[in-house]
C-alpha cells in the first residue's frame, strides 16, 4: 500500500510539489522564528556576559519595581567609601551609562528603535571594549566608537565629531574603534566610549555613576564578597555577583522575547500553516475524487478500507515529512530574511550565530507533519467510502459526505464557537497568555468555520464577481463563472486559503486606521499649542533644552512633559493606565486643552499636593475627585496626592498629571519626553518663523525635533505605518502560500476538464480564450477569498476596537485601502493562474479530446 502511495506521488510530481510548498513555507516560518529569536537571545546573553566579565560584584540602585520609561537612578560616590571598608576587595570602578548619539558633519547618528549610548571607560579587569584600531580614550574629549558605527560613518582616527549630551553637543575626537567583547553584532545600537570625568560633566552627573563594579582578591568568592557588601550597604542598593547580574538581565530579555516576539512571530507562522492546511485538504480532496475509480479497483481487488486509508495517509505522511524537513532548512534562510526585515524596519536587533536548537527541529517537524496529516484525514476517510462497484461504472460517482445535513449546522457552530472564544479573549479576564490563547484558537475556528460554510455563498458571490467579467467577455466570462461555482466546496476552500492572509491584512489595516485616527484626533483636539518638540528615537530630550525654548521671543508658553511609571497604593503597575506625567502648571493650560469630566480645574494653581487623573486611571484604581491616594516610582520614593480633577484623554495623556517639580522629586527621570509650545502669533507664517527660531535655539540638542501639530500627526502616522508594513511583510508569506493553493487547484481542475478544454479548442476557442477562462476563474476565486477576508478582517477589527474602547481606540474603515486589497486579490488570482492557464492553452487538442475514451 505504501509503495502504491509513493508511486502515485511520483506520477503526480507537480501536484505533490505544489502541495508540499504550502507546508514547506509554513514550517520555514516556524523554524525561522525560533532560529531568529534564538539568535537574538544568544546575542543578548553574550552582551550581558561581556558586560559583566571580570566583574565579581555589581552594585546598582535597587528599583522598587521595573520602570520602562526612565533609566534607573544613579549611585552617589559615597557608595565607594562604604565599599572600601569591606575586606577582600581588589578593585573598584564606577561606570556611567547615558543616552547620547554621535554627530558627524552636523548629522545625528541614531536608529529609530535601537539604543544610542555613551558609556564610560572602565579599567581592567572590568573593561569589555577591545580596540580594533587605535586605543581607548585616555585624555579629555577623546572617544572610541563601536566598529559598525565607525564603518557606517567612515570615521577616521583623529576625526573631530560631536556627542549629544544633556548639556548640548560636546566636541570630541575619535581615537579608537572598538568591539564589544566578542559579540558578533549589537544590532543597530551605537556605542560611544568616553572617560568618566568627561561624561559626568557632559551629563550633569557630578559624583554619580550607574553601576559600581567590584573585584575581589583571589581567595574571596564573588558570593562571599556580595554577602559582605550587602551587610554594609543600604537597603536601597542592590548587590549581585557579576554572573548573577548577567544571568538575571539575560533572563529578563529572554522573557520579553519569549513572551512577545516569539509568540507574535509564531502567530504569523500559524496563519501561514493554516493556509497550508487548507491547500493540503483541498488537494487531497480533489485527488481522492479524481482517483475514485482507482480506489474502487483496489477495493474490488480485495483491499480493505483500512488499506485504502493507509494508502492515502501514507501519501500525506510522505508529503508532510519531506516538506517539513525542507521547511526546516529553508527556515535558516527565512531567519536571515526576518533579520533583514527587522533591520529594514529600523529595528536593529543584536544577533548571535545561527543555530538549529533541538526544540526548533522537534517543533517544526511535528507541527509540519501533524498539520499535513490532520488536513488529509477527511479526504482519506472519504476515500475509504468508495464502493468497489464504482470501478465498474462508467461515470465516477461523487462520494456523498455521510453527514451532509449535519455539516451545515456543524460548520456554523464551529464559526460561532470561534467568535465566542475571540470575544472571551478580548473582553474576558485571565492572564494575558490565556486571553491570547483564546483569541488565537478562536480565530482559527472562525477561519475553519467560514471556510467550511463558504461553499454556500460561492454561487452568489461568483455571480456577483463574474458579472463584470461577463460584461467584458461574454462567453469566457460566463464559463469562468460557471466553472468557479460548479464545485463550490473546492472553490470555497481555495478562496479560504487567500481569505486567511487577506483577512489578517485587512484586520491590521482597519485596526491601525482606527488607532491613527484616534491619535490624530487626540492631537488635533487636545493639543492647543502650535509646536511640539520631541525626539525621533526612544531617548528622552535633554533637560537643558527647556531654558533654550523659553528664551525664544515668540514662545508664549512652553511646558515639558516628563513621564515615569508609577504604582498606586502598592499595587503592581498596569501597563496602560499607570503613567505619571509631570508638567509645568503655569504653561500647561496654554498648550493643552482638557476635556474635563465633572468640574473644571484651574491647572495653573494645581499646587504640590494635587493631581489630575485620567478617566481610565480613576476607574482602574477606584479613585474619584477628592480622594487622596499614594503613588510610588521605581526609585522607591512615594508621595500622596489628592485627585483635584478628572479628564478624558486615553489616547495621548494616560494616567495622572502632577507639577513637574513634584515629579522630579520622586522620579529618577531627568529628561522630558516632549515639550508643548504655544506661540504668541498663531498665523501660518508666524508659526513657521517661530518653528525656525525654536529649531535654531535647539541647535545644540540635535535629537530634539521641532514640529507643528500637523507635522507631528504625520510623523506619528509614519511610525504606526512602519509597524504596519512590518506586519504586512510577515503576512505576505500567507498570501504567497495561497498563491500556490490557487495554482494547485487550477491545475487539478484543468486536469479534470482536459476534454472540455480540448472540445473548446476544437470548436474554435483560441488559446488566448482558454487562458482567459482559466484566468477569470482564478480571479473570481481570489476575489471571493478577498471578500470573505475583508468581512472577517473588518469584523475582527471592530471587535478589537470595541474591546479597547476604554483606551479610546476608535473604529474607522480605510475604504481606499480595502479596495486596494481587493485589487491585490485580483492580482493574486492573475498570478496564480499564469502557469495553469498556459498549460491549459497548450494542451494538445487531439490528446485532450480523446482523453478517457
Amino acid at each position, binding site marked *: 500500500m505504501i509503495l502504491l502511495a509513493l508511486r502515485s506521488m511520483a506520477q503526480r510530481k507537480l501536484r505533490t510539489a505544489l502541495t508540499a510548498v504550502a507546508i514547506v513555507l509554513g514550517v520555514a516560518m516556524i523554524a525561522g522564528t525560533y532560529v531568529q529569536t534564538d539568535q537574538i537571545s544568544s546575542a543578548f546573553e553574550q552582551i550581558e556576559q561581556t558586560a559583566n566579565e571580570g566583574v565579581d560584584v555589581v552594585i546598582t540602585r535597587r528599583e522598587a519595581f521595573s520602570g520602562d520609561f526612565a533609566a534607573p537612578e544613579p549611585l552617589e560616590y559615597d557608595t565607594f567609601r562604604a565599599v572600601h571598608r569591606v575586606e577582600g576587595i581588589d578593585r573598584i570602578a564606577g561606570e556611567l551609562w547615558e543616552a547620547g548619539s554621535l554627530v558627524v558633519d552636523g548629522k545625528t547618528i541614531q536608529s529609530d528603535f535601537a539604543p544610542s549610548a555613551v558609556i564610560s571607560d572602565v579599567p581592567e579587569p572590568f573593561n569589555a571594549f577591545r580596540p580594533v584600531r587605535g586605543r581607548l580614550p585616555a585624555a579629555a574629549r577623546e572617544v572610541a566608537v563601536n566598529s559598525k558605527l565607525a564603518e557606517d560613518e567612515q570615521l577616521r582616527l583623529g576625526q573631530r565629531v560631536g556627542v549629544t549630551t544633556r548639556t548640548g553637543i560636546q566636541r570630541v575626537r575619535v581615537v579608537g574603534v572598538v568591539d564589544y567583547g566578542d559579540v558578533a553584532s549589537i544590532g543597530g545600537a551605537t556605542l560611544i566610549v568616553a572617560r568618566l570625568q568627561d561624561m559626568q560633566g557632559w551629563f550633569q552627573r557630578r559624583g554619580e555613576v550607574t553601576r559600581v563594579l567590584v573585584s575581589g582578591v583571589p581567595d574571596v568568592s564573588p558570593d562571599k564578597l556580595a554577602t559582605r557588601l550587602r551587610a554594609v550597604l543600604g537597603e536601597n542598593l542592590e548587590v549581585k555577583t557579576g554572573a548573577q547580574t548577567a544571568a538575571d538581565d539575560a533572563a529578563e530579555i529572554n522573557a520579553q522575547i519569549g513572551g512577545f516576539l516569539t509568540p507574535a512571530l509564531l502567530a504569523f507562522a500559524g496563519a501561514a500553516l493554516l493556509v497550508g492546511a487548507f491547500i493540503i485538504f483541498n488537494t487531497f480532496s480533489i485527488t481522492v475524487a479524481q482517483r475514485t475509480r482507482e480506489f474502487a479497483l483496489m477495493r474490488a481487488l480485495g483491499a480493505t478500507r483500512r488499506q485504502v486509508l493507509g494508502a492515502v495517509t501514507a501519501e500525506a505522511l510522505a508529503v508532510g515529512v519531506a516538506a517539513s524537513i525542507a521547511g526546516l532548512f529553508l527556515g535558516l534562510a527565512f531567519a536571515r530574511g526576518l533579520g533583514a526585515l527587522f533591520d529594514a524596519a529600523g529595528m536593529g536587533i543584536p544577533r548571535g550565530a545561527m543555530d538549529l536548537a533541538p526544540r526548533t527541529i522537534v517543533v517544526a517537524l511535528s507541527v509540519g507533519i501533524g498539520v499535513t496529516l490532520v488536513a488529509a484525514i477527511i479526504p482519506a476517510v472519504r476515500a475509504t467510502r468508495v464502493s468497489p462497484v464504482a470501478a465498474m461504472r462508467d461515470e465516477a460517482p461523487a462520494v456523498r459526505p455521510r453527514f451532509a445535513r449535519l455539516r451545515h449546522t456543524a460548520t456554523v457552530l464551529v464559526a460561532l464557537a470561534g467568535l465566542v472564544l475571540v470575544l472571551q479573549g478580548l473582553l474576558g479576564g485571565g492572564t494575558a497568555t490565556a486571553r491570547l490563547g483564546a483569541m488565537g484558537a478562536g480565530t482559527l475556528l472562525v477561519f475553519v468555520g467560514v471556510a467550511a460554510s463558504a461553499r454556500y455563498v460561492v454561487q452568489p458571490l461568483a455571480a456577483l464577481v463574474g458579472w463584470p467579467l461577463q460584461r467584458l467577455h*461574454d*462567453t469566457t466570462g*460566463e*464559463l469562468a463563472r*460557471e*466553472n468557479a461555482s*460548479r464545485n463550490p466546496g473546492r472553490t470555497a476552500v481555495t478562496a479560504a486559503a487567500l481569505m486567511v492572509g487577506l483577512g489578517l491584512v485587512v484586520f491590521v489595516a482597519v485596526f491601525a486606521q482606527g488607532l491613527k485616527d484616534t491619535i490624530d484626533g487626540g492631537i488635533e483636539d487636545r493639543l492647543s499649542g502650535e509646536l511640539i518638540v520631541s525626539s525621533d528615537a526612544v531617548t528622552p530630550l535633554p533637560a537643558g533644552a527647556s531654558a533654550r525654548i523659553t528664551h525664544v521671543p515668540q514662545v508664549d508658553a512652553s511646558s515639558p512633559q516628563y513621564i515615569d511609571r508609577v504604582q498606586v497604593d502598592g499595587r503592581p503597575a498596569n501597563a496602560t493606565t499607570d503613567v505619571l506625567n509631570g508638567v509645568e502648571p503655569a504653561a500647561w493650560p496654554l498648550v493643552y486643552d482638557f476635556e474635563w469630566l465633572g468640574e473644571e480645574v484651574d491647572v495653573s494653581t494645581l499646587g504640590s499636593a494635587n493631581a489630575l487623573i485620567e478617566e481610565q486611571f480613576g476607574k482602574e484604581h477606584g479613585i474619584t475627585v477628592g480622594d487622596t491616594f499614594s503613588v510610588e516610582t521605581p526609585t522607591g520614593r512615594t508621595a500622596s496626592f489628592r485627585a483635584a480633577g478628572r479628564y478624558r484623554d486615553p489616547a495621548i495623556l494616560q494616567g495622572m498629571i502632577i507639577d513637574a517639580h513634584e515629579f522630579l522629586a520622586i522620579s529618577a527621570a531627568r529628561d522630558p519626553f516632549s515639550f508643548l509650545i504655544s506661540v504668541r502669533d498663531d498665523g501660518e507664517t508666524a508659526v513657521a518663523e517661530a518653528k525656525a527660531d525654536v529649531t535654531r535655539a535647539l541647535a545644540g540638542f540635535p535629537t530634539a525635533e521641532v514640529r507643528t501639530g500637523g507635522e507631528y500627526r504625520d510623523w506619528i502616522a509614519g511610525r504606526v505605518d512602519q509597524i504596519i508594513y512590518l506586519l504586512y511583510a510577515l503576512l505576505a508569506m500567507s498570501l504567497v502560500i495561497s498563491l500556490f493553493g490557487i495554482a494547485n487547484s487550477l491545475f487539478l481542475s484543468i486536469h479534470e476538464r482536459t*476534454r*472540455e478544454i*480540448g*472540445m*473548446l*479548442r*476544437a*470548436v*474554435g*476557442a*483560441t*488559446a*488566448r*480564450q482558454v487562458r482567459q477562462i482559466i484566468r477569470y476563474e482564478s480571479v473570481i476565486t481570489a476575489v471571493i477569498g478577498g471578500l470573505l477576508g475583508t468581512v472577517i478582517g473588518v469584523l475582527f477589527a471592530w471587535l478589537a476596537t470595541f474591546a479597547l474602547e476604554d483606551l479610546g481606540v476608535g473604529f474607522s474603515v480605510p475604504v481606499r485601502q480595502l479596495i486596494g486589497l481587493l485589487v491585490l486579490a485580483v492580482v493574486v488570482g492573475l498570478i496564480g493562474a499564469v502557469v495553469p492557464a498556459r498549460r491549459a492553452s497548450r494542451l494538445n*487538442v*487531439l490528446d485532450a*479530446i480523446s482523453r*478517457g*475514451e
Partner: protein
Amino acid sequence: MATEPLLTTTAAVTEPAPAAPVVRASGLVKRYGTGGAQVDALRGVDVTFARGSFTAIMGPSGSGKSTLLHILAGLDRPTEGWVEIDGTRLDELDDRALTLLRRRAVGFIFQAYNLLPVLTAEGNITLPLRIGGRKADPAWLAQLIDAVGLTDRRDHRPAEMSGGQQQRVAVARALITRPAVVFGDEPTGNLDSVSSREILALMRRAVDDLDQTIVMVTHDPSAAAVADSVVFLADGRLAGTLERPGIDEILDHLRELAR
C-alpha cells in the same frame, strides 16, 4: 425524433449538381515516431468531398481512419501533403488562424458528446458562435432546436439529459455556425440503436435540407449505409469507394479488406 414528419423527406431527389469540392486533401502522409519505432498511419491519401455530400470513412482498426479525420479537420497536421477547406490551405495557417477557421468553417460531432456540463443545452449549442463573439440568429436557433427535438430541454444541463439527447445537442452545436463541413468521429459509438438512428437521421436531414457537407468516421455498417458514399481505408491507404451502398455491400467490402 422518430415521429418527426420532416424526416420522411426523400433525400436523393434534391441531389445538387456536382459542386466545387469543400474539402480537398492531397498526398497525406502521417508518420509517428522515428527509426525502428516508426509507424506510418497514413501513406499517401488523396481525397475530396463535394458540397452537400455525406461521406462515411470506414476501415479496420489501425487503418488510419481517425488520423485522416483529425488531419482533415485541422486538429492535427500531416507529415506530408496538404488539406484545403473551403478554399483555404490549412498548412499555410498558424495555430490562431487555424482556430479561427475551425470556428468559422468546421463543425464537430464527437463520440463522447463533449458538452460543457456547466452550460445548458442552448448554451452548448450556441457556444461556437459566442466564442467568436457572435449572437445566434433566434429564428435559426429555434429551428435547429426544434429540428433536434429539444425545445422542451433548452434550459437543461447535460447531466439532466440522456446520451441520445446530449448527442442531439452536439449535432445542433455542429450545425449552428452553418459550417462548410461537419466532421463526425464515431458519432453513434456511445449510443443505443434507437438513439443512433435518430442521430443519423438528423445528419442525413442536414445534408438533404441544408446542403450541409458531412464527413464521418464509423465502424458501424448500418451508420455508414446512411451516407451517400463510403470511403474505405486500409493500412493508411485508400481502399475503395462505394456509392450509396447497402449494409451487405459494406460488410462484403470490409471482409475483403480484412483478408
